[in-house]
């Protein structure tokens, strides 16, 4: 098609290949082309972190990335966190600790938490706060989210 380009990447472990308009944002490809609507758009300006995804294991705001910018990279969205019939330990812990209210911030929070624990399995509360500092939550007041993440760290559950 005129004006489009091929976009290839590994999304949640699967190779994808699509033709997309060249100035499309990563968040639009995820939500509108791949149907991965777990990635939320809050501000659309890099301020809230609701659109966070992991690119090669590190958190990025998918509203600030051009899809073609992450060509051939490894992308993890919230849909790729759990296995088919088991929640991820972080997801279990968020539920147990009441760290989810409206849920809008939750996908982003879980992904920054995963990125943190993958690198640093035993973070302090301070380190957890830094890791989630790019993610806004209007509901929980954050402390339950920090509790939920540190509980997983203490159990030493990986991944």
């Amino acid at each position, binding site marked *: 098609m005129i004006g489009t380009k091929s976009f290839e990447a590994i999304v949640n472990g699967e190779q994808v290949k699509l033709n997309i308009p060249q100035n499309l*944002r990563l968040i639009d490809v995820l939500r509108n082309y791949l149907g991965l609507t777990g990635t939320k758009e809050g501000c659309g300006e890099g301020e809230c972190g609701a659109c966070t995804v992991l690119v090669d294991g590190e958190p990025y*705001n998918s509203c*600030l990335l*051009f899809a*073609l910018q992450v060509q051939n990279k490894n992308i993890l969205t919230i849909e790729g966190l759990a296995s088919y019939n088991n929640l991820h330990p972080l997801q279990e812990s968020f539920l147990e600790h009441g760290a989810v209210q409206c849920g809008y911030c939750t996908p982003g929070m879980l992904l*920054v938490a995963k990125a943190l624990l993958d690198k640093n399995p035993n973070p302090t509360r301070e380190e957890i706060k*830094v890791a989630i500092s*790019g993610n806004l939550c209007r509901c929980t007041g954050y402390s339950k989210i920090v509790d939920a993440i540190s509980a997983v760290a203490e159990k030493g559950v990986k991944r």
Partner: protein
Amino acid sequence: MGVEFYKPQKLEDVLDVLATKKGPLKILAGGTDLMLDIRNKKYEVAGIVDINLLSELKNISVEGEFIKIGSLVTFTQLANSTLLQERVPFLVEAANSVGAPQIRNQGTIGGNIANASPAADSVVPLIALDAICSVLSPLGNRDIPLNQLLCGVGKTRLASDELIVEVKFKLPRKITRSAFVKFGRRNALAIARMSVAILLGLDGNKVNAARVALGAVAPNPFRSLELENMFLNKAMEEIDVDEVIARSSMVVSQALGNRPSAKWKNEAIKGLMRQVLSKIGIM
């Protein structure tokens, strides 16, 4: 929408795209400024030139008496560099002061410079260090001092087919102290933002080199020789803190003239100066 996305693999290819493809073209580093500028229609673009495949622009190195930082080095890389932590901690502090981990992962030093915001955080310590930018165009390489490259709010002397390859500065001597402080979030009104970077070289207890740079006071960050002179050739305990603070307020007043922000910024600088002096161990 006819935007072409180019992804050159080598520096020569970047130059080739910049020289031959239909413009206006914009270089894409992290995209944290560019994405929003394009979406807010700040300018028209016909093509986006993504330079992220140029891994040679992602290194921090020492060459002779210079530290060289590739233009694609991110705030996260600056913050994690042990070399920078040891020799220019105030640049690390500036990188860490950038709001969110996601932005630190994505935003680059080259983009911070080229975007030419009055408050660009990494630029304030870089100005204090008299940093020099190496830029490349089809005509060749040139070095241009950062304070000349920047020429107004959002303005640089880069030609449209020119890119910043790296930024470099002389390695400060081992015995220096430096600090960076700022207040105001990025999206706060311009009036509510300001930053200070300071670096002192010490010979025993005596200050033999002094750099003081201010951000968000003028169109671009600048060094204040007037303030630097108040530290030079003094022993640490001889530095008159109250006088430095009073003078910093005058410097800010002069720089802002009769702009409405002057009245409050020349007060606010006093607190900021007190903070930076205490961080560097003078009070």
